[in-house]
């Protein structure tokens, strides 16, 4: 049982570093997420891990702890209709409007990569789109990014949302793991990004996906992230949130059931299609 003061310390750490809203009363949650971190980092207990954190000075350990509290996006084709709408309607219309310019797509809370890889699998074989898209993916978690880039998934993971036909077409088996083909892996560029930081250096995007992260954030952090993501949209661009995630100011819901939003000033590419 983690003492209250330490639970409050952890919640404050996660809030300050990543805007994460952690309910410090949820002891079981802290224990189940931090147990593996403590073991991996060689601490005899979660208590010892927290003591070390409170001594300060170990940045890497602080981030490893915060990352562990993030709920990763871990399903292929989560919300199938969103992927169908994106690849079947939104992106073809954007490609027509963009002339020869490549479309820039950013998975902003990519976790272990299932979201951006789902898109890569769909787009690679979509006539006229495969070589017209630039896929970017970022996450706060270094560990998640490492796993994403390795693109080696367990038998359990490849049965979450991934149709068997795509499994046999896009993956190779290496030992017990299913590894995405190099051709698809090479479509994606990766970077560690804390969405609370200034993201303007990343450039602007036609589509930004940020699903199921906002509900994990404190209100001020949520506003800040939404503002930077909206600001990173190209004119006519689309922000995809999780279903039912409220977007707030500066964004117009195009198809709320799949989280599709437009910058309020952007012209509606999809309805013009």
């Amino acid at each position, binding site marked *: 049982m983690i003492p209250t003061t330490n639970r409050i310390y952890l919640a404050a750490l996660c809030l300050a570093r990543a805007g994460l809203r952690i309910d410090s009363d949820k002891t079981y949650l802290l224990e189940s997420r931090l147990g593996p971190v403590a073991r991996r980092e060689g601490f005899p207990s979660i208590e010892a891990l927290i003591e070390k954190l409170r001594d300060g000075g170990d940045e890497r350990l602080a981030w490893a702890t915060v990352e562990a509290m993030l709920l990763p996006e871990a399903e292929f084709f989560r919300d199938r209709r969103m992927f169908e709408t994106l690849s079947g309607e939104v992106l073809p219309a954007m490609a027509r409007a963009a002339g020869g310019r490549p479309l820039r797509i950013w998975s902003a809370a990519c976790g272990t990569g299932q979201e951006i890889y789902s898109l890569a699998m769909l787009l690679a074989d979509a006539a006229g789109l495969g070589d017209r898209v630039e896929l970017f993916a970022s996450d706060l978690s270094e560990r998640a990014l490492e796993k994403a880039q390795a693109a080696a998934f367990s038998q359990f993971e490849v*049965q979450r*949302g991934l149709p*068997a036909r795509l*499994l*046999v077409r896009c993956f*190779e*088996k290496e030992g017990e793991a299913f590894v995405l083909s190099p051709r698809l892996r090479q479509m994606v560029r990766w970077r560690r990004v804390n969405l609370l930081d200034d993201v303007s250096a990343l450039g602007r995007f036609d589509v930004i996906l940020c699903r199921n992260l906002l509900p994990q954030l404190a209100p001020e952090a949520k506003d800040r992230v939404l503002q930077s993501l909206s600001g990173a949209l190209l004119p006519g661009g689309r922000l995809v949130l999780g279903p039912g995630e409220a977007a707030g100011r500066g964004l117009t819901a195009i198809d709320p059931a799949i989280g599709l939003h437009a910058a309020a000033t952007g012209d509606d590419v999809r309805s013009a299609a």
Partner: protein
Amino acid sequence: MTSKTCLVVDDSRVIRKVSRRILEEMGFEVAEAADGVEAMAWCAAVLPDVILLDWRMPNMDGLEFVRRLRAEPNGAAPKVVFCSVESDLDAIREALDAGADEYIMKPFDGGIVAGKLAALGVAA
């Protein structure tokens, strides 16, 4: 509205029981067969909406069953989901080419079954 039916074909009574529980929780009406021959007999009487099909079975294995089923009149109608310990991609490809709609690698859980059936549009 009548509930959808699922035929569970597996020579292991334990697996049939586990599958039955998962499918009944999803609202399916469940029938069982212990091999391909029993499953063919069942399908000759009444075609289920979904067939959850093991691969290695005595008398008639899953691969032969699905080929024969697909050759029958109306045999294209049921959604066939293989459910096997076989996890090599060539084997999965063979099952899909033989006429299976989806493929589940054992061990599986209710979440995987529900996800696969939903993707095939046959949620009960």
